[in-house]
């Protein structure tokens, strides 16, 4: 089944923070020639970026373009990401799609790349460069925000205060800070009392430790919100401390693990940003730019919160990769 037409929010004028208008997005049926597209990820170590990988590679196959994917191995390797993108260009990429490690750190590079008439597309993470040709993303700010919003609705100002443990992810990573800002913004004027953020690598043992300690320090905690890894790790801990039902878990982005968690009622909710679609759209934007076709420069899938109520209704493989999928780095 085709993924399109797909309801997306399109920002007009592009790259402004005007509220996005709802439009239905339909990609080109096929690319006119076998363009050589290069995709750069911060890393390929978790289910989220695996999902994006699924999106870009599937779309490349569908549109019939060549695609090479590189990953920098982690959010502390900006230098490596720069080198990799340079290598892509050296290897003759026609367009570059970047899931940036840093919002500003790639600006110079992007300037020099776009100077070569190579369109640069900003995927998922958000980059501030003026030389970006198109953006396909739901900013992590929005993700954090909608997570916070979801909770704030449940506990409006005036209702009894509740404590929320907050685990945004590895300190210093761009997406973490963005999500943090959004979440705080959304929970600002509500009954929610958000404990100060516990940063930590998105490895399960690291997050488990943090969750255990926070539960230890604040027995009266009601919600645990954070990365997908946090939510997944917390399930076992909550069960073992038989706090099931007393403490609710939320993730600010969705992964297969979180999806199952919600299905089984162990995780309360998570906003879905359909990273698969973001990937698909980015590739289509690249093709359109290369072929000079009209292009929506700044779009992101409509974001919606998945919880027990609506999880039955949504189509899994638009927001998540199939379980069988394993990473693909090349499409020829």
């Amino acid at each position, binding site marked *: 089944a085709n993924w399109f037409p797909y309801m997306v929010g399109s920002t007009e004028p592009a790259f402004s923070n005007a509220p996005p208008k709802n439009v239905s997005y339909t990609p080109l049926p096929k690319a006119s020639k076998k363009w050589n597209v290069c995709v750069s990820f911060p890393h390929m170590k978790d289910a989220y970026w695996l999902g994006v990988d699924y999106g870009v590679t599937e779309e490349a196959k569908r549109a019939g373009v060549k695609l090479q994917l590189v990953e920098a191995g982690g959010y502390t390797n900006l230098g490596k990401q720069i080198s990799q993108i340079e290598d892509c260009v050296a290897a003759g990429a026609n367009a570059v799609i970047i899931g940036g490690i840093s919002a500003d750190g790639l600006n110079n590079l992007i300037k020099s790349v776009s100077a070569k008439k190579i369109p640069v597309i900003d995927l998922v993470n958000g980059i501030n460069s003026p030389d970006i040709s198109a953006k396909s993303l739901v900013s992590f700010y929005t993700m954090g925000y909608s997570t916070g919003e979801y909770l704030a609705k449940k506990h409006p100002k005036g209702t009894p205060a509740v404590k929320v443990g907050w685990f945004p992810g590895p300190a210093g990573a761009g997406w973490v800070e963005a999500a943090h800002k959004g979440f705080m913004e959304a929970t600002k004027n509500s009954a929610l009392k958000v404990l100060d953020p516990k940063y930590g690598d998105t490895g399960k043992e690291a997050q488990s430790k943090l969750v255990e300690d926070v539960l230890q320090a604040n027995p009266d905690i009601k919600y645990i919100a954070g990365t997908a890894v946090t939510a997944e790790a917390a399930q*076992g801990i909550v069960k073992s401390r038989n706090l099931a039902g007393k403490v609710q878990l939320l993730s600010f982005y969705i992964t297969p693990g979180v999806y199952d968690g919600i299905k089984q009622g162990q995780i309360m909710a998570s906003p879905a940003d359909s990273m698969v679609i973001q990937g698909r759209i980015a590739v289509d934007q690249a093709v359109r730019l290369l072929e000079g076709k009209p292009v929506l420069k700044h779009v992101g899938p409509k974001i919606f919160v998945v919880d027990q109520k609506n999880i039955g209704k949504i189509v899994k493989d638009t927001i998540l990769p199939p379980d069988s999928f394993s990473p693909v780095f090349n499409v020829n």
Partner: protein
Amino acid sequence: MNESTVNKPTAMPWVISGPKTLFRWGLKIGVLPIFLGLALIVFGSLSDQFLTVQNFINLLRQSVYLILVSLGQMLVLISGGFDLSVGTVLAITSVVSSMTMSYLSHQGFSPEWVIALGCLAGLVSAFVVGSLNGMGVSLFKVSPFIMTMGVQSIGFGFALYLTGGVPVSGLPSEFGDVFGFGDIFGMPAPVFICVVGAVLVWLLMERTAAGRHLHAVGGNARAAELSGIRSGRMLMMAYVLCAGLAAIAGLLLTARTGSGEANIGGTVALESIAACVIGGVSLRGGIGKTINVVLGAIFIVLVQNGMNIANIGSYLQMVVLGGLLIIAVITDQLRQKYLV
């Protein structure tokens, strides 16, 4: 070689101040117990949640993994080497064992068998990694640093290739219930296993010829050979056991997380070495005491746990932890000086 530098005792008046007797006593038992004591007091006063039984158990359970890995690391350090691949071993064991388990349970084996075979598979993969390291170091005389770093990279690539970074789910729930959250003789299962492991390592190092020979190889490889020790075998043993202990930690972690993860153990290599060094293990080989290494590991975990509970901001935590490591070692240096 810096240790061996001719050092004229740099006078440190402030150390001697304070009650003499206490000071003497401190010199005896070493700095780690004292630091642990201080940490307990400080964090206890910072949060009333800290000095609770539950948190104590919690703390022990958290320490288990680092302790096990550090014990392995100690063996390698004593042999005069290095093991940067422990993190990978954790990852590989977790991935391999859980993939095996989920496969077998789909085949409808009984949980006992699934778990047993799964763990076996994990241990075997760890054994492979360990013997790779051992062979490189003993046979081909590759610098342990490069050898284990190379293997680390290879192994991680392999683990990611197997999983694509996606957690491997579908483990029999019994696995988690027993080895993750279960109790044995009133102790949390992981703690129990860790204690057993520590005792065995202690026996090996203090009460067997092999242990002594390992010390010897680290102390002076050439002399060891001439005194009829096959240093090759000793090195092999060190690296295999190290991988083995890391594998056990990996299995326990898997039981705890309930899924196979390629992304566990990112920082464990450096942390375990740190635990050993503040436990008084020499990076030049030949020197190291099991008990102190255990204390070292506990110290690191305790500080992290304490700071989390005392609600200290993450950035500050990095600073404090780094500072404490250094101070601990400095104090130990001074102790050495005043001991004589």
